[in-house]
């Protein structure tokens, strides 16, 4: 069977060169050198607290800040870093009024830099934000850093099982029959996504 090669016919289809300007070896050396000497690092100067929504019940926070700097800014706080807290707030906007209230808080342990948060209450109209702060000698919370706002995921309907008829709302029917979401086979991405393929 004679082989068809793209090289043999490409002059009819393209004027672009298939051969890169640099050799494979040169490319590989650049790639390896950069990976060796410029490995990922988080800049310690970049003070940050980020809050992300995972699902209706969970948030995720990560942070990065200089401990010494924070202690300098809060002279009234204790000199140990044992009293750092991550505090999650909910925020509700009604007209011009913005109401914030602390929902849950976590003591930050040593070099800890992330926290999964289970929400005690789910209110679809709320957004969340977080603060990391220290408790001073009077047990008052002194915020050191504040996060972005993140909207919560909402789940207002209780879903039970699959049937397409449960996804229609008749005009004259106030009752919206929907079924349990968790029972749905939500995805088979692993079966079809190439990037989920094993060797």
């Amino acid at each position, binding site marked *: *069977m004679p082989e*068809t*090669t*793209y090289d043999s016919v*490409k002059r009819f*289809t393209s004027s672009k060169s*298939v051969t*890169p300007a*640099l050799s*494979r070896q*040169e*490319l590989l050396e*650049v*790639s390896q050198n*950069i*990976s060796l000497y*410029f*490995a*990922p690092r*988080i800049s310690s100067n*970049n003070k*940050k607290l*980020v809050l992300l929504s*995972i*699902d209706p019940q*969970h948030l*995720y926070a990560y942070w990065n800040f200089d401990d010494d700097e924070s202690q300098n800014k809060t002279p009234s706080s204790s000199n140990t870093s044992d009293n750092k807290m991550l505090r999650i707030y909910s925020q509700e906007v009604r007209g011009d009024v913005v109401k914030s209230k602390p929902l849950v808080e976590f003591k930050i342990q040593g070099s800890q*830099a992330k926290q999964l948060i289970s929400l005690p209450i789910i209110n679809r109209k709320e957004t969340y934000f977080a603060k990391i702060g220290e408790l001073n000698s009077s047990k008052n919370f002194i915020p050191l850093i504040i996060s*972005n706002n993140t*909207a*919560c*995921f909402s*789940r*207002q309907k209780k*879903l039970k099982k*699959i*049937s*397409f*008829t449960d*996804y*229609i*709302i*008749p*005009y004259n029917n106030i009752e919206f029959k929907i079924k349990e*979401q968790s029972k749905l*086979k*939500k*995805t*088979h*991405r*692993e*079966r*079809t*996504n*190439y*990037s*989920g*393929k*094993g*060797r």
Partner: protein
Amino acid sequence: MGTEKGFLSIILHAHLPYVRHPEYESFFEEVWLFEAITECYVPLINALDNLSKDNVDYRLTLSLSPTLLMMLGDELLKTRYLTYLNTRIELAEKEIIRTKNQKEYQKLARLYRRFFIHVRQIYQNYNFDILKAFKKHYFSGRLELISTAATHGFLPLLNISEIAVRNQINVGIDTFKSIMGFSPAGFWLPECGYYPGLELLLDDAGINYFFIDTHGVVDASDLPKNGIYAPLDCGNKVMAFARDPESSHQVWSAQEGYPGDINYREYYSDIGFELDLEDVAPYILDGKTRINTGIKYHRVTGKGQEKKIYDPKKAKRKAYKDAKDFIAKREQQIKILSRKMNRPPVIVSPYDAELFGHWWAEGIHWLESVLRLASEPDNQIKLVSCKEYLKQQKNHQVSVPSSSTWGDQGYSSYWINEDNDWIYPFLHEMAEEMEKLAVDFTGVSVLPVQKRALNQAFRTVLLAQASDWPFILKSGTTIDYATKKINDYLARFNYLHECIRNNKINEHYLLALETMDNVFPDIDYRDYKPVI
């Protein structure tokens, strides 16, 4: 529209991460692309050609991701693909000889040989240009083509920077436009990841509609009056179409879905794993590591039974039967729905394109049959693209969908968890630094080499943001590869960032990075400057 009672819109989403490796002579992950071309994209083109030849007035929507578009047009990958295809033909020929005393197996080996040659013929007929074929069908008015985010970034977790999300969307659309020659009306949100507000960025990018999972519409800000069988206007005339769970389940479900039928070809039975190493050594990784070759002799069979030999004719008959069943169920669904709605229902059925032909070998035949059956004039169903539907159906309910994805559990937990959460501080910081670069180097005089470095930094940010990397880290498949890809992109960005800030750019290194990460040639780093 005619007298039909309802519509069916089938959407295939085709995407692969950027897996091009010019720094190696051959690279395993490039085979993902080669398998997809051989088993899915070319057979799909063949099916569309057949439908056109028979003048079937079908409608199908195909989403082509920008990374896939770039790879399908890449000269190096085209060359490597033909080498791959030629080796498949060679392997099938060897199999014909090896199975000379096993007639049933030999028959299948001959079939594989014919199949690979046919694929090569079709590919050659289109001048080795898959996109030319899709464009031809687009201009026939029957195939709707849309696109997605630049590197399939998972937008809900990039959303701490609006400019990061905006650029995933805009670069994706610009790439599609520059390659395909027209603007997409629709947008595939990567992993159907939606959050309220995304519609504003889509509107800015000229997008008319997108797709979300069922619960995104069910949990919308106002009760959806037509459930999930009519789109919602997000408030700015950008429409959200919801996935129909019934038709999804029939195709996706591992237990009850069509692909699990005992007569269909077994994906996991491949001679790359089954034959003696010496028989398959030239066709596997480095001659040592077993991988799929594409030649598979067995059918699904039953649970716990020894795998039986595949009968392609029987499987084809079954695929046709399943297509009839699919259409009958949609008709039944439409019959019930249309009694309860004030407009014809539209059933939206999105699938990953690579399910068809690759994972489910008979999937393309099934799809072609579905398109033929649905196009028959005497049924109550009409195939439609969402663009066409929106042209003809007006006055949609205004309601903002809720945050949702089509991933496991319906939200973001597959893309952020204990296996992959480490990537986000890096990704977010990288986007932040890119933003600072864009701000600092906009409106000032920039040397051509600086501009190249800034644009390359922008490309690197996008490539690192692909949803595929956290997906692989969670699914546990090619973890080493995903980890290396992310670390390499982060290191490359660090390198470029340092060079730019210190104004010491090594052109040899820059050229190497431009050669390896050669996506999005028209990118402009100034677009990373926040919109005020």
